[in-house]
């Protein structure tokens, strides 16, 4: 199959490459760019393990052709660490509150939580549960994930207030 040229920004870096028109964004990230944080749990848009941020929205990258991401600004879990390489707030809170076990859903969870907290910086528990419902976890029962996200919201708000 003939290949097409794609160019996008991933975690702040311009990247480009050749891909078949049918290539999914998740495969381009994982196979071509070797960004393996986003995982594949279903390839049918149900599990959310492949969640990345694209142009300021959460998308399931198993359901986006890389062609559709041409020119887009994509953030994966790798891009959520602090500039000095330390864990970002949400990552740190997942660790603090035991919001992960096998870790397979975690990159998608954290990336989704990142967007959720941009959309709604002070969510209630209900809003967190609803806003995270596109991401499945088989290990944690979500209780500590919800805790971690609520704790992140508090910390992020504190940081923002301090900055203002």
């Amino acid at each position, binding site marked *: *199959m003939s290949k097409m040229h794609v160019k996008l920004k991933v975690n702040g870096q311009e990247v480009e490459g050749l891909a*078949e028109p*049918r*290539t999914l964004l998740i*495969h381009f990230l*994982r*196979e071509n760019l*070797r*960004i*393996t*944080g*986003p*995982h*594949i*749990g*279903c*390839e*049918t848009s*149900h*599990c959310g*393990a492949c969640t990345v941020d694209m142009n300021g929205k959460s998308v399931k990258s198993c359901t986006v052709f890389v062609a559709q991401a041409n020119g887009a600004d994509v953030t*994966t*879990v*790798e891009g*959520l*660490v602090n500039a000095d390489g330390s*864990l970002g707030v949400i*990552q*740190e809170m*997942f*660790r*603090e509150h*035991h919001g*992960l*076990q*096998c*870790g*397979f*859903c*975690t*990159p998608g969870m*954290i990336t989704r939580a990142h967007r959720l907290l941009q959309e709604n910086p002070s969510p209630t528990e209900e809003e*967190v*549960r*609803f806003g*995270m*419902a*596109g*991401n*499945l*976890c*088989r*290990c*944690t*029962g*979500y*209780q*500590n*994930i*919800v805790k971690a996200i609520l704790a992140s919201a508090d910390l992020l708000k504190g940081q923002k207030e301090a900055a203002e």
Partner: protein
Amino acid sequence: MKDEVTSKDRAAGLKGMGTSRKRVEDVRFTQGKGNYVDDIKLDGMLFGDFVRSPYAHAKVVNIDTSAAMKVPGVLAVLTAKELAPLGLHWMPTLAGDKQMVLADGKVLFQGQEVAFVVATDRYAAADGVEAVEVDYEELPVVVDPFKAMEPDAPVLREDLAGKMEGAHGPRKHHNHIFTWEAGEKDATEKVLSGADVVAEEMVYYHRTHPCPLETCGCVASMDKVTGKLTLYGTFQAPHAIRTVVALISGIAEHNIRVISPDIGGGFGNKVGAYSGYVCSVVASIVTGKPVKWVEDRMDNLMSTAFARDYWMQGKIAATKDGKITGLWCHTTADHGGFDACADPTKFPAGFMNICTGSYDIPTAYLAVDGVYTNKAPGGVAYRCSFRVTEAAYFIERMIEVLAIKLNMDAAELRRINFIRKDQFPYNSALGWEYDSGDYHTAWDKALKAVGYDALRAEQAQRIADFKAGKTRKLMGIGLTHFTEIVGAGPVKNCDILGLGMFDSCEIRIHPTGSAIARLGTISQGQGHATTFAQIIASEIGLPADDITLEEGDTDTAPYGLGTYGSRSTPVAGAATAMAARKIRAKAQMIAAYLLEVHDDDLEWDVDRFVVKGDATRFKTMKELAFAAYNKAIPGLEPGLEAVSYYDPPNMTYPFGAYICVMDIDVDTGEHDVRQFYALDDCGTRINPMIIEGQVHGGCTEGYAIAMGQEIAYDEMGNHKTATLMDFFLPTAWETPTYTTDFTVTPSPHHPIGAKGVGESPNVGSVPCFSNAVHDAFRHFGLVQSHMPHDHWRIWKIAEDLGLHAE
């Protein structure tokens, strides 16, 4: 006094057992730096994918691979014909049966592997799969295990024709696999016929699937130069896989290196040996390139490792005041097309004979018949220890059924039948020796915590309101007291393919006082790197943060049987403690030499040996580690390391008391879990944070199973639930919030008293949720209704009971 405080401080600094130490794994996982099988990319790596059968039972008349071979990127297509000369078209199963690697003349379930296409990448492989042409001739399908046992049922396993002796004794029908019995048949029947009260019920635990978020997969890499095969894979038991590969492939075991990298959840799915592994190995040998195979979700739900599917006919006898006198159970076990259950060899029905549960039942009998049907093979322990969850569901339903018959409160019925604390060690009628327990204490604590009497009063009011037309919502109170049996197992009873179920740990202390430990187990999210370091920290007094833990590489780790059946803590945890104690014993001799005293004159204090009666004279473990490499000590070899292979003297018997309060909308069948209380007793608690997390996760799996998750087939053997659209995995939105609690009854035979907890919540929560549904309708005449209790089925209960308006 002052000393005591510093000992405590020093102990706290170790982050040993009992502390909620944060997980060391998480730094990698939270930033996407895990290393799972599908993350592995070797030079020149190819990708394999299966052609699968669309039929549940059919003859394979012809396979034409010529068009597939022309697809760009396709390098090879394997069928049974290619595998047969190597003797690899069939493989042995863990249950003593054999299984087709690729369809050999016929297929026995929908989704069965028919051909393996190897291509340059996964897209080309999928194109190749599309291009393989297979001619099938349909055969009559049997999906019902009872119909499979009718005299004129179609013969499923023609390869077994005439073989009336199976791996587990005589076969009594062409679709019969085995009969397995425990207890006393005649005595039990006598008790039943003379009893005041007998309750009888068919309890079905439906077919489901562990469905970890990461599917199964592997990368096989045969190095033609060294002759060494490296096999990376999602293996819950890497050493056993190495031995199996050696036995079936003929490659010498020392030339095989099996590596389990990070595993994205297992729950039993990743115990078995699958066609994908065999085909990847062969494909790597044939092509000379590394070959990756990773299931997609549909492959996973259709072909690897279903769980449960037990039809349990029960009879329970009691005196009129509720003392249980006997239990009888006949189970029809649907094993699918091949018997690939993952059970210890001598236990073809797993530990189903723990089905007397937490109760002192003097006489009991169990028989299990395994049956072939046109469904996927598997029968794995989905987060349970070999059929314990079926056993727990059975007895916890039978107790409720008996309570209805006796018109008794089910909490009280349990209380008067619990095995008493002073009866442990307790020999059950079906052959187990329960190590320890204190059920009454746990039960009373649980009932008090939820305010049981007030809940019953509220329920009575609700029933009155419902009858008066004031509400359409009923309230159910689900009760469960379960006893688990984990930690397989004593080698004398338990083996898999002849490999005794011990486990192992090797610890090496470095000169500067840090350490590396390697184990025969493998974490799939349980946090072994965190908790096993805590055991070592407490045993030898080096900080857990200074101890690296490695698992999953058969070239470096000592032989072990892997992680499933909640056996890591009971078995490998014990091996860890024992290896650590060997190290401490040697360190004591070094200390005696350095301090110039007899080793009996030293005592251990958290992280040091102190001369008895003189707290100022001591040597810390850190100092002793250095001395082990630095001093020539007469009579002692240099170095400080130890290995322990632990064969447990008995299983451990964790238990728990779970209570669920649920509101049910009679008109829509919807439910709302208002409260879920989970008390677990897993003996000594190594890391309370991790235990709690395990309970949340296990209860959520239980919630799914009880309330909607199933593997369903239609009459034609079509798989109806092969995507996450149809197979229920709860989201954060539906999932209940859990309150966890505990009591501590240490295991008397385990070096640190730990019992294991990972699977208890799955075992305990399924009957608890199900009992809540049943309890809501108990006062309207419901006795038994099969899981999963999805909205439609609950609506149907109400409909059948006449609770809907005309």
